């Protein structure tokens, strides 16, 4: 068993364990923090799979921006910081059964489909910033530009949504809400 394999197993177990904690912990802020662990482990797995640039982007955007956004959201919605008794709905068992069903289905499919196929990482081209940049701006320019338009649309949508006013917001103080909306937009 090579070093890569050992590292993969360790990182994989960390990702799975922290992911389970993300969906099961009773403390909401802890869930966000456990999500950081999962995403970081996945970034490590990207590194192992010769996707260097994707791994750094994962760290930057996911671990950095997305988790911070989620934490902001938790705070802006005045989520309690301590453990809560009611973070899950009443239908835990049916939901778990569905999740197990999905896991069994997918796992059976991939394991049965790729048994005996080796992933040879020795001669793989490492997806460094240079190669990835060349690839994106030579081969994938059009999807890249389309994606930029999508981002712009998402930005506009977020602004429009945050400027929506409802009738029952008067009693909660509008200036504060407007400030919150600007925070979200940023």
């Amino acid at each position, binding site marked *: 068993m090579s070093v890569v394999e050992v590292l993969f197993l360790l990182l*994989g177990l960390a*990702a*799975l364990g922290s*992911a389970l904690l*993300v*969906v099961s912990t009773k403390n*909401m802020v802890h*869930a*966000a923090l456990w*999500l950081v662990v999962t*995403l970081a482990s*996945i970034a490590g*797995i*990207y590194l192992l*799979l010769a*996707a260097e*640039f*994707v791994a750094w982007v*994962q760290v930057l955007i*996911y671990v950095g921006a997305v988790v911070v956004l*989620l934490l902001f959201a*938790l705070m*802006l919605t005045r989520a309690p910081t301590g453990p809560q008794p*009611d973070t*899950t*709905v009443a239908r835990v068992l049916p*939901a*778990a059964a*569905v*999740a*197990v069903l*999905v*896991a069994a289905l*997918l*796992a059976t499919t*991939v*394991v049965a489909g*790729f*048994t005996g*196929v*080796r*992933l040879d990482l020795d001669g*793989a*081209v490492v*997806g460094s910033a240079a*190669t*990835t940049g060349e*690839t994106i701006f030579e081969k994938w320019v059009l*999807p890249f530009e389309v994606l930029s338009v*999508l981002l712009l649309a*998402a*930005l506009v949508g977020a602004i429009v*949504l945050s400027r*929506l*006013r*409802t*009738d029952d*917001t008067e009693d909660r103080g509008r200036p504060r809400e407007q400030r919150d*909306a600007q925070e*979200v937009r940023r």
Partner: protein
Amino acid sequence: MPLWWPLLLASLLFAIGVYGVLVRRNAVLVLMGVELMLNAVNINLVAFDAHLRDVLHGGQTFALFIIVIAAAEVGLALAIVLLVFRSHGHIDVDRLRGLADRDPPTEPSGGDGVTAHSALTGPGRTR
């Protein structure tokens, strides 16, 4: 390393994400489940990119695109969550029943469903 290791990992992460989406009550936590599912897909893409030695690096590029899309999605979703919080005072998904098919209320002052309806479908109420 057998190819099915990362694939199995992705499958399990996806199932965990499904579980999180299905059971979490807080909308932000539901979003975390969605993030897990997206990452599971990304693992698949990167693993197959490495396995197939793709000249175009399609797997890694798509993983990047998905990360970008996920960021946009989180931004929009959080705007919606904040709006819901402003209009309802909470973001518990199982208490937002505005989509339920009920008899029309006899009195105009309704519960959650009515106000959510008026808040989320009323661009005419924007100012």
